């Protein structure tokens, strides 16, 4: 059985950027990437690649195609899925995408994916750590009219059928649907594998296929943002922390307890 998986991957600002290095461009209402901290592949997208590669491990005749939409791709960053073991990569890199909104992203991704013939499964991250939208995957499944299985912690593929364990707060739900389908994953699917030396060598020889809007029959006028960002600000913290300091750490612990009692917190 040959099996075609599309994985949607986004390049994002490193979420481990310290809060202190976080700055906003008020004219463009955008986040200024911190100096010297390169972008990364969104964490859950790496989990999505891992999920695809696990399937490839069990179904050898599997092709994993990674798709990403954006601008200013850093090749060393965005090619990581290839060095992990993905087969192909498609990048839609168009200057019009500078301030890409999730509704347009959904439209473009759906259009690119529907041009990949015979896809069996789309795997997405559960959410992207930049704008925390967490709805592009649901948008793709609605646009392509295919089943949407969320928050998979385990994926099982049978001919023409997918079963997942979907994480809920106090356990899991076993969900099943026909293929093609779309699945979202989070870190619960398992740690992304490290690129091997061989993988890195192979990836260095692969060139991502680059598409612009003309290649995918999308016109700027087709895109409708649906929402407008009116304000972007750093969060304000209104708490002032009182630090209890005793003679030593043990004493401080005791003082903390007394303070909480005195303030009627406990």
């Amino acid at each position, binding site marked *: 059985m040959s099996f075609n998986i599309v994985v949607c991957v986004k390049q994002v*600002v490193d*979420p481990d950027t310290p*809060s202190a290095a*976080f700055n*906003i461009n008020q004219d463009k209402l955008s*986040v200024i990437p911190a100096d010297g901290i390169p972008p990364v592949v969104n964490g859950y997208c790496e989990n999505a690649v891992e999920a695809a590669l696990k399937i490839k491990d069990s179904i050898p005749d599997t092709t994993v195609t990674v798709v990403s939409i954006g601008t200013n791709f850093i090749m060393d960053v965005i090619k990581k899925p290839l060095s992990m073991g993905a087969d192909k990569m498609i990048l839609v890199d168009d200057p019009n995408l500078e301030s890409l909104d999730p509704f347009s992203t959904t439209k473009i991704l759906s259009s690119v994916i529907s041009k990949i013939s015979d896809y069996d499964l789309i795997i997405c991250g*559960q*959410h992207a*750590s*930049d*704008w*925390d939208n*967490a*709805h592009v995957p*649901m*948008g793709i499944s*609605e646009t392509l009219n295919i*089943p949407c*299985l*969320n*928050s998979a912690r385990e994926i099982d593929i049978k001919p023409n059928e997918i079963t997942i364990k979907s994480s*809920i*707060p*106090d*356990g*899991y*739900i*076993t*969900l*099943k649907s026909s293929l093609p389908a779309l699945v979202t994953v*989070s870190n619960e699917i398992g740690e992304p594998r490290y690129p091997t030396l061989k993988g890195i060598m192979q990836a260095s020889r692969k060139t991502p296929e680059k598409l612009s809007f003309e290649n995918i029959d999308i016109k700027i006028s087709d895109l409708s*943002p*649906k*929402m*407008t*960002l*009116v*304000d*972007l*600000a*750093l*969060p304000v*913290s209104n*708490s002032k*922390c*009182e*630090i*209890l*300091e005793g003679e*030593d*750490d*043990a*004493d*401080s*612990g*005791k003082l*903390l307890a007394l303070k909480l009692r005195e*303030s009627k*917190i*406990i």
Partner: protein
Amino acid sequence: MSDILVLAETENNYLHSTAGELIAAGRKLADELGNQVCAVITDDVDESSFKNLIHLGADKVYVISHAELSKGNIDAFVSYLEQICIQINPNVILTSRTYMGRNIGARIAYRLESGVAQDCIDVEIDKNSSRVIATRPVYGGNAVARFTFNQDDPQVIILRVKSFDSNEIDTTRNGSIEKLNISIDNDAIKLKLIETVKEESEGIRLEDAPVIVAGGRGLGGPEPFKQLEELANIFDGAVGASRAVCDAGWMDHAFQIGLTGKQVAPDVYITVGISGASQHMAGCLGSRNIIAINNDADANIFKDASYGVVGDWEKVLPSFTEAVRDLLKS
């Protein structure tokens, strides 16, 4: 009439706690716009729940029923909401950022080709356009964004759990309860629910605990969590964890608190060896008091905590626990 439609979730035959939160948010919008709050609920609940929705602030209750809805099939919910929207043409749809709500909200928005804002912590009406302005943390909480919708019909808002307080129950409120007859296309139900497996650990649920003691990577391994449990037990509270802890396998993912874990708002949230990354704080900022034990005076957690100790938890925690035990005895 363009109403505010609220998806009231149920749990074990009763209203889920988020139903009241959604109605409170819906009321805020409806009172400004001069329209009504309509709650949609499945019929697999105690009859009193319908009235409760009205007492919490709803004007109308629409009851829907289908075996797949009772099972929690998201496809069924999306199809039902689609049909309801065709009938009543709401201005706003509100769901909660629960497992169900965050998926249903996003799906119905795309089904209706509308906009959707995930994880909102506040909503208000823009005086000029009469459309909703949604406030939502972005970049894991490192920034806060406000968005307006470019179109009505409907504006879909997915509300962060515990970001609104339910209104007081008002038993004098009146409203209508209507069973809706809706037929949906069975082909639209593509998901099959095979089984739901609860893995709930014994003890009090994190979401219900008045006191939570949460541990982070600073604890260095799984064993210290026994000490956190000891402290939590004094308060009849519960133990939570950061994602770093769950990813390391020290605790199960069910204990994870944060943006992608559970959202909690206890009276007291005590963190031990947690740095206070914005993604973690997203799950506990609603707590009345945040207390921190961390050996790094510059750790982010001290920005959000009201009391803390800068020190090694191995020394601080035992004496803190002992003192708490003594104080609560007397």
